């Protein structure tokens, strides 16, 4: 079983002329977890991943796998599997021949090409020219090439983009399974909701800067927590909340109370003898705090 290595970015900066696409970025990605690398389009995610993979030279800083730069890895494909954009192939080549070229270059057997094509569900299209593939099939082919060397580290740039609902469900389970085996899984996306169900940790960047990192649940605590509560007698509930010193606003489905604990709000209502019909913690906090972090609708 391949084991994952720690991915470490230290003070990565990349300038294109006067523009800093990535600015002094430092973070680590741990094995055994799925880490979401999030940010709006143009935030510098792809540039950061390409620096990690030795495709783009950073202006300063280093990015390593277990302390080793990509270009110094003795067996790169068997250590790190990467899927970047979905169009890195010659349209006239079949999927089998496309992957076989890189299997040859990495010293992997051709039987492994067939294995990974079957694994991603492209087995029956292996000998078809890639030019005729749909976007979803190209995404799967990209994933197949990442898996070629059975690597301990997976680096996937927007892998969910273009997949159908069935494919999305499949890849979520797949990423979880890879992490459960102890591999390091780094997945970029510009939509939190796309990866929310499969990531453990998040690293969020905006305009080339790191704005947040930590477990997914840590996003929750970043915004003021709210509890939704409602009663057949809203006036009595409002009076009780005011008397208890809790601030609130009128929402679509009830009163939005600025409190972290639904129990506290329930106790206030119970003490005042007010019947309640709705009482729960507001759930949409993740996306809201994500948008707040990356600057709302400021994306390109």
């Amino acid at each position, binding site marked *: 079983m391949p084991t994952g290595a720690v991915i470490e970015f230290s003070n990565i900066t990349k300038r294109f002329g006067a523009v800093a696409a990535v600015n002094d970025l430092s973070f680590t990605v741990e094995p055994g977890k799925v880490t979401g690398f999030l940010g709006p389009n143009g935030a510098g995610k792809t540039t950061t991943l390409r620096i990690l993979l030795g*495709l783009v030279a950073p202006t300063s800083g280093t990015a390593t796998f277990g302390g080793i730069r990509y*270009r110094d890895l003795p067996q790169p494909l068997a250590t790190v599997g990467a899927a970047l*954009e979905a169009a*890195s192939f010659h349209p006239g*080549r079949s999927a089998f021949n496309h992957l*076989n*070229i890189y299997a*040859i*270059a990495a010293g992997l057997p051709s039987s492994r090409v067939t294995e990974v094509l079957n694994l991603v569900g492209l087995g029956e299209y292996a000998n078809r020219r890639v030019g005729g593939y749909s976007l979803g099939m190209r995404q799967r082919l990209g994933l197949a090439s990442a898996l070629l060397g059975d690597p301990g580290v997976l680096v996937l740039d927007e892998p969910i983009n273009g997949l159908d609902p069935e494919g999305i469900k499949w890849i979520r389970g797949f990423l979880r399974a890879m992490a459960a085996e102890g591999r390091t899984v780094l997945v970029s996306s510009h939509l939190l909701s796309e990866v929310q169900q499969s990531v453990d940790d998040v690293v969020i960047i905006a305009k080339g800067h790191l704005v947040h990192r930590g477990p997914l649940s840590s996003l929750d605590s970043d915004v003021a927590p709210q509890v939704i509560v409602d009663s057949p007698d809203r006036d009595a509930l409002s009076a009780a909340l005011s008397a208890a010193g809790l601030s609130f606003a009128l929402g679509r489905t009830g009163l939005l109370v600025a409190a972290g604990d639904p129990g506290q709000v329930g106790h206030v209502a119970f003490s005042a003898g007010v019947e309640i019909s709705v009482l729960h913690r507001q759930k949409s906090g993740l996306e809201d705090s994500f948008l707040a972090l990356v600057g709302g609708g400021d994306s390109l």
Partner: protein
Amino acid sequence: MTVFLRSVSAEFAKILTTRMWWILAIVLFLYIALLAGGLSALFGGIATGAISSSAAGTGGGAPPAAGLPPLIYSFASSVGYVFPVLIGALATTGEFRHQTLTPTFLATPRRRGVLGAKGVSLFVVGAAYGVVALAASVGIGALVMNGFGIDPQLGDSATWALVGRSVLAMALWAMIGVGLGVLVPNQVATIVIVLAFTQFVEPLLRLASSFTEVTAGIGQFLPGAASDALVGASFFSVASAASAGAASLLWWQGGLVLLAYAAAAGIGGYFSSWKKDVT
């Protein structure tokens, strides 16, 4: 197998898994066969009196029968060299165009080795194109000349030396194509440059340079002239030698000049595009 040898076989796989290599090989064969057959018939006819010089309009400049076979055989490289250049240039520009540099450099992060592997594999592919072109020029040419009663000189060791040197020239041209492809990564631009330079610019330069002795000394270092020097015979040398005492390099010097062009283009391209960021 070492990383380099694996890269070389990956480069062979890249060429052999798309249709371009055999399409170009077929066109090359037909083109050279037509030219070698047609001109063998024309000059053979003149030399044997079947066609009168005045009727052919060559003004008596046709080569003597003994000089005809090497001339016809050398069409393989003197005319066909554009084909290995194209396959070499497509091998590098295709990587930029289809963004396959990303998976290539992921599999083999040491980029110098990848470019070297491309040079080596295209050298072999160019040599194979040389074999195809010579099969056309020698095969068809000898057949037609024999038909006109001209000795095709197939038993002559000089003929086979020419064949060997032609194969080497074609192999070197494919490496020049690789170098040109990294120097000018835009595929369309490269194809236009290859066709314009080989079909118009260089022939004109060679002709112009043969007018004075000083320029002739420079003209012999033009890639096409160096290639003809390596091969040892060409329609161009015969035609221009008649008009002026055009200088020519020794065969091995010609080979080294071609190699120098390939190396210069490859090293220049390595720094101008190959080692740059892949975005």
